């Protein structure tokens, strides 16, 4: 019975990862599609490929953080992880319908914390790990913003005397392939590892793997496959839906925003800090907008991101605590 429950919850975690890829695909391919560098079909395949190969480039530091530095290992159980995932999914759905640009990563962390508190109180939270995550909720978008602003200024200074505008535009259109690929690599590395972390915590709790062991290869491969399949499935639909709504970024802005966000995701993945990929690219886009003039930035969107910063972790935590209450009745 326990084995069945374990695999069921692993399935739910992979479904969460799939939805993450489905939802976030547009972040990495919006610019290459809107500037017609690639067709939506090829752009989605491009992003999915880099989502998948991320495991070859980055370690599993983010997964270790999720598994060990959010809640104490001794309270983790199948029911707790299930409640955490239900809380994160419920919060993501509510904010999706409210139109809030929420982060599924923060929802997952909030869900784990909320379910653990419902089970054993605040004493089981690993405050050091949660503090790092909380600091980088703010720092990651700010770093993306500063990096993309500086990149834009450097590029504008370098090319403003050039009279060969057309070759320059062609060059930046091609460079978008590299920057979109790099961003997808960072997205795959940071987001797929969150699911790996949840599954690792579950496997340790049920005694399937010992504490302190590496993430099993099948977990790594299945998490990357799930996020890549989500990108492949959802990205295509989302790009088609977004069609006319896409922000008309110029190739040069797209390259700067994506490169800045990719750099931030590489850095945080190397240090094992789980961050919101959506908020990081939002920071990058605000940065390129601010390099033109402050009024070019859609501050309404930026304000909504700040609201999402503030409410996602407590919101998902409350949902997960309620879910744990229901789960504990049946367990």
């Amino acid at each position: 019975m326990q084995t069945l429950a374990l695999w069921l919850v692993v399935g739910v975690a992979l479904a969460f990862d799939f939805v993450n890829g489905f939802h976030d695909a547009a972040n990495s391919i919006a610019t290459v599609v809107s500037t017609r560098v690639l067709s939506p079909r090829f752009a989605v395949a491009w992003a999915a490929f880099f989502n998948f190969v991320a495991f070859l480039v980055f370690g599993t530091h983010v997964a270790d953080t999720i598994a060990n530095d959010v809640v104490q290992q001794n309270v983790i159980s199948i029911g707790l992880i299930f409640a955490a995932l239900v809380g994160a999914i419920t919060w993501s759905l509510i904010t999706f319908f409210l139109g809030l640009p929420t982060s599924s990563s923060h929802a997952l962390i909030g869900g784990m914390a909320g379910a653990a508190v419902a089970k054993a109180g605040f004493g089981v939270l690993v405050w050091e790990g949660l503090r790092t995550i909380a600091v980088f909720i703010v720092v990651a978008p700010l770093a993306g913003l500063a990096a993309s602003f500086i990149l834009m200024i450097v590029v504008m200074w370098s090319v403003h005397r050039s009279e060969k505008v057309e070759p320059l535009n062609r060059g930046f259109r091609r460079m978008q392939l590299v920057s979109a690929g790099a961003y997808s690599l960072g997205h795959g590395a940071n987001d797929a590892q969150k699911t790996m972390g949840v599954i690792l915590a579950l496997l340790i709790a049920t005694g399937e793997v010992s504490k302190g062991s590496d993430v099993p290869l099948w977990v790594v491969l299945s998490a990357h496959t799930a996020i890549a399949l989500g990108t492949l499935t959802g990205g295509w639909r989302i790009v088609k839906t977004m069609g006319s709504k896409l922000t008309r970024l110029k190739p040069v802005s797209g390259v700067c925003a994506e490169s800045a966000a990719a750099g931030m995701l590489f850095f945080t993945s190397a240090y094992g800090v789980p961050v919101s990929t959506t908020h990081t690219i939002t920071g990058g886009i605000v940065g390129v907008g601010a390099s033109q003039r402050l009024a070019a930035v859609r501050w309404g969107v930026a304000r909504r991101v700040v609201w999402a910063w503030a409410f996602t972790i407590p919101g998902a935590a409350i949902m997960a605590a309620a879910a744990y209450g229901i789960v504990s009745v049946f367990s």
Partner: protein
Amino acid sequence: MMDRRALFFLGSAALCLVLVPVTPADLRWFTLALAVVYVVLAIGSALDNWSRSREGRSDH
């Protein structure tokens, strides 16, 4: 009057500085460096705004 972009960068620098003490020790350098970058950007933005307004006045 100071331009809004410089004020935004100064606010971001202040936010990063507030976060420095609560950032874990191994990553504190990053938050601090980000605060310094934002201060530099604020100064650059204010100087850019000042030179543009001077150009505007001299045109008249």
